[in-house]
């Protein structure tokens, strides 16, 4: 009973914020709503007896991904939807049709699949220790592969950022820390020009 109430509360929370993330006009509001929806998902994981996944969801999505989205939004300012413009794209009817088609194509096989008839196995509890042991023994190769992939992606991101820094006149890429309210950009200060690595450190994680 109590479990059902908490489930519906978290489900409603997650859905409301997910819808808000898609429909609000201000980009920063969308990003923050997405973070709230991520937190709601983490709560659902916790209710499903998966504390490790729940905490990881909170740590990675709310702590890192949401911040990344916020930084991206701030670095690409000016794309906000004005009050007069409709939020929907002119071809929304076609989009809706495609979406319904995809939904049908996915839902039909799922509903007719025999796996739905099977009785659900009893809820397994996954102690964190067990997850750690499995990750370090049976799934160590996938884990390491993912690690190498992420490192490569990170180095790639740094390299891309470096190249932009040397092509552009120094100091142009510093809009993040020198927000000056729409006035003309000041020429680069020696402070930022001499230490371009400060900027990378900001965007690195």
């Amino acid at each position, binding site marked *: 009973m109590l479990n059902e109430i908490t489930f519906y509360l978290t489900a409603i929370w997650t859905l409301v914020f997910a819808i808000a993330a898609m429909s609000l006009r201000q980009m920063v509001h969308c990003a923050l709503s997405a973070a709230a929806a991520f937190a709601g998902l983490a709560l659902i994981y916790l209710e499903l007896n998966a504390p490790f996944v729940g905490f990881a969801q909170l*740590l990675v999505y709310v702590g890192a991904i949401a911040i990344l989205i916020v930084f991206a939004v701030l670095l690409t300012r000016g794309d906000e939807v004005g009050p007069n413009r409709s939020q929907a794209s002119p071809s929304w009817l076609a989009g809706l049709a495609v979406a319904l088609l995809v939904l049908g194509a996915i839902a039909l096989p799922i509903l007719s699949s025999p796996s739905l008839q099977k009785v659900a196995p009893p809820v397994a509890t996954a102690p964190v220790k067990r997850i750690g042991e499995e990750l370090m023994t049976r799934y160590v190769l996938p884990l390491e592969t993912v690690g190498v992939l992420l490192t490569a992606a990170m180095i790639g991101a740094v390299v891309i950022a470096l190249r932009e820094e040397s092509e552009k006149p120094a100091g142009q890429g510093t809009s993040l820390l*020198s927000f000056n309210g729409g006035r003309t950009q000041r*020429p680069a200060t020696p402070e930022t020009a001499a230490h371009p690595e*400060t900027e990378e450190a900001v965007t690195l994680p």
Partner: protein
Amino acid sequence: MINRADQVFVLLQHWLAGFAPAVVQPLVLMLFIIVGLMTVFGNCFALTTIMERKILGRMQNRLGPNRVGPFGLLQPMADGLKMIIKEDIVPDSADKVLHFLAPLALTVPVWLAFSVLPFGRNMSALQLDAGILFFFAIGSSSELAVFMAGWSSQNKYSLVGAMRAVAQMISYEVPLVLATIPILMAASSLSLPDIVQAQSGYVLGCIPHWFVFTPWGLAGFALFMIAATAESNRCPFDLPEGESELIAGFLTEYSGFKYALFFLGEYLGLFAVTGLAVTLFLGGWHAPASWLEWIPSWCWFAVKFGALIFLFIWVRATLPRLRMDQLMNFAWKFLVPLALVNLFVALAWWLSGAWHSPAGLGLRWLLGAGLLAVPYVWLGRGLRHGESGLRQYSYAE
């Protein structure tokens, strides 16, 4: 008798819950913990503000607050009253909803972090398998709150301050977490009571088996404390709210009780991370010597906790503020590599675990210290290399 004094809070909790009907007893037990935590750490906040001002005054050769009550001890009450009756000003251009939500989003999750800390024997609110993961997951949500505060104020100082704060908190979270990893490996558990349990007993009969008394533990403790100072935005890492350059950064547009809430949230974050440092490195609630074990466990936690808070205040009184580029360089070019090296030191310590004799122990210490000293000097030189030469400042070109 000794045992009863040790468990006084647990016994009190169960005795009080005994009056409630059986159906709601779990809720009453929880409520007791929540009320207890909020009372203790709320008062701790008040006490720390006055002690901090007193100690700062003492260290800077002045008196500090001494007007309200005996020795100025009622100053926090006066401050609180002032904060409540101040006018709450919201800027015209501010994003009203986010401006209202930001202090709450900062303060509410911080309370959750206290729920996993073991304050004494059998005294942690939640026994989570992955307690430390929960702690860091909760802690990571404060960055969004700071961003909300800075952005919703629609003030460039606020936004700059918030961006600095977010960049700083993300950067210093990496060494903070990396410094705890050797502890988790040594205790082979993510649960905080288990980590405290792993630090019981004594080495050579007299030295407590705390993790801080190992080369990697000592280095990890130093890294952890530095990163914790930065994580809680305290001097010398307080440049997100540098009063003299950013007029309090993301707090610029806050006044009255919302400002007080931010203040509360920051101090509570400091308390939580200090409690974690006590738990991870200083043996939690364990006594420092076997003949002192008759003193209740929560007393030892309180003593260690107070000592670390004093250390934070001392550092604040001693060191000047860093510059933004120094701050970032220090995190990414010094703390993170050193924390990674520390993992290998822990590995060497673990591999040489069979050397039990005093000479063997000395050799292990030498090995660990050597493994740490070389990268320390080398990385320190690298850090200074970028700093050589005069810096030229340009104001108002």
